[in-house]
């Protein structure tokens, strides 16, 4: 088999708050290949988002190894982590996080105007329109988020995640604020990215959406275990 896209081994994260230290992740291991989709389910507070933060280089594990394309990246300095986030990762959040004062196209372009290289305006526009087209809302490019439905806003967020053609797509409860039908459409849009070789890690509470991923992993008591696999 090919080299895994992502390989976590023995990831541990302990939260040191005002109370006693609490182990959130306890030796978590995870392997994701290019074009593979993985759902992570678990109860609230089980550490799903913490795991996603570590996967997305927002946070560092206390111990363990994180390989991306075989390269250890768990201890990267912030400058390099930012560069990697820009070039290899796409993020979709439950709350869309669109900027109200920008149009859909400008919100998508935000991922291109981030100080990691420079694209001339024309090329930027082409990339943005391609990304919006991928999620089927190119016609809403000039609309502001306030004039869009929840599903449309989440599609803009997905377009923003896809505009740099990422290797890994991390989605944290992307359907949490949407109705069933719209949520299903969003999952379709995310799944489509895996057909282009992108690895998808979806954190969700929704068992139906999880079932549409290639594998389902459950996080409980800091331990990640596989609970389902779809065989092609």
């Amino acid at each position, binding site marked *: 088999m090919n080299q895994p896209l992502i390989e976590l081994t023995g990831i541990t994260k302990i939260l040191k708050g005002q109370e006693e230290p609490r182990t959130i992740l306890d030796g978590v291991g995870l392997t994701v290949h290019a074009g593979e989709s993985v759902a992570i389910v678990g109860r609230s507070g089980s550490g799903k988002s913490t795991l996603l*933060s570590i996967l997305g280089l927002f946070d560092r594990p206390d111990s363990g190894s994180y390989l991306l394309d075989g390269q250890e990246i768990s201890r990267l300095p912030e400058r390099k982590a930012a*560069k990697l*986030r820009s070039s290899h990762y796409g993020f979709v959040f439950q709350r869309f996080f669109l900027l109200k004062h920008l149009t859909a196209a400008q919100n998508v372009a935000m991922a291109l105007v981030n*100080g*990691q290289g420079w694209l001339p305006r024309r090329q930027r526009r082409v990339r943005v329109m391609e990304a919006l087209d991928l999620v089927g809302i190119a016609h809403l490019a000039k609309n502001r988020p306030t004039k869009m439905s929840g599903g449309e806003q989440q599609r803009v967020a997905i377009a923003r995640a896809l505009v*740099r053609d990422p290797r890994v797509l991390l989605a944290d409860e992307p359907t949490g604020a949407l109705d069933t039908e719209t949520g299903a459409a969003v999952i379709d849009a995310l799944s489509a990215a895996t057909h282009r070789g992108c690895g998808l890690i979806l954190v969700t509470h929704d068992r139906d959406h999880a079932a549409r991923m290639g594998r389902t992993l459950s996080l409980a008591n800091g331990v990640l275990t596989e609970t389902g696999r779809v065989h092609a």
Partner: protein
Amino acid sequence: MMRLSGRFRSSLIIGLQGIRARKLRTLLSMISLFLGVLAVVTVQAGASIAERALMSDVELQSGYDGTVVIDVMPHEKSPSIVSETVAGRNDAVSLIGTSAIIGEPGVSPINPGGAPFDQGAWGSTEICDNVGNCVPGPPTGEAIEVVLTAVAGDLLTFRPLRPVSGDWLAFDTVPSLAPKIVINEEAAKGFRDHQVPAEMRVRGAKANMTPQIVGVVHDGDYQPRAYVRQDELTNWMPTSSLIDPNFGGQITVMTSSGSPVEQVLQSRLRGAGAESYVNVVQNRKEMEKQLMLMRLIFLSMAGLVLLIGVAGILNVGLATVGERVEEFALRRAVGTPRTLLAGIVLAETMLTGLLTAAAAIGAGIAGLKIVSMVLGGSEPLLANVQFPWDAGVAGILAGIIAGVLGGFIPALRAAGIPIATVMRA
């Protein structure tokens, strides 16, 4: 290089988007900063205009900076030596000062000693012989005494005398037997207030002359003074009589630095046993200390006002960063480096500072135009006064500095926003 340029452009684009999205806040920041920047612009403009005015007043009498001034002590041969050395040269001018009484013949002047007309007599009307025996002079009549400066060369190259009316002496014509004179404003007062006939008495002249007044200038002198072509004066008296060592007098040569006149003249004067002293005009250097002190005092006051504006930017900046926590966390999530986040905030505050500076400079220019229009008639220095470019530069610098100072802490705060906690919320 490419990356730096990309970051710079990114911070400008995002900064401008931020300003457009929060127009009211930007306006409030600008208002709080406006007075501070305007104070800096006003102080700098005022200091520059004052300095220019002061300089131009000093230059009126002492000459332009860099001019070499040779003061020649009275000596029987010095007028001739000076005249011969300067003759035909365009890089030097000689000024030989004597006194003249213009007006009714056989009377004492209204202002003996060439005193200003509102200061009473400086000299005596008595007539004394060489051994000091004095007898009362003739009664006072319609005559005025002026300091008469015989000019050889283009004086205006070295001293910026300001024309008030008429013309300056023309040196390209045949010397007239009726000497043309240009009087200063104080002398003009005498002609205005008294019925003075056109007859001029000069000590050592073979006869009285009939002067023609061709112009009035402002020369910064408070004594009544008349300027005359030396060759027109020497039609009536020998050059050696221009100075009488017994009665004093003044010979000054002004020349440009590097001119051979200085060396030749000094050698010739030394040879004749006449003393001379050389100094180079350095008005700006001499005035710099006192101007700098004055400017520093006013700039410190303006700086305090600016500080209030900085506090305003800081306040608005912190509030804005607090509101934009999610935006900054999101930008970090999509790969924006911390330095660029700080750059975005600084770009916004600096652009705000620059916009404010532009507004303050505009207000300064408009204000100066109004002051010039309203007061220009009564105060010649303010007539047609131009906005000094260094005040504009000071305004822009003040705007940028205020933007950087006011944006620094918000920028640090923006750069330190953690992604994980915000995105999880």
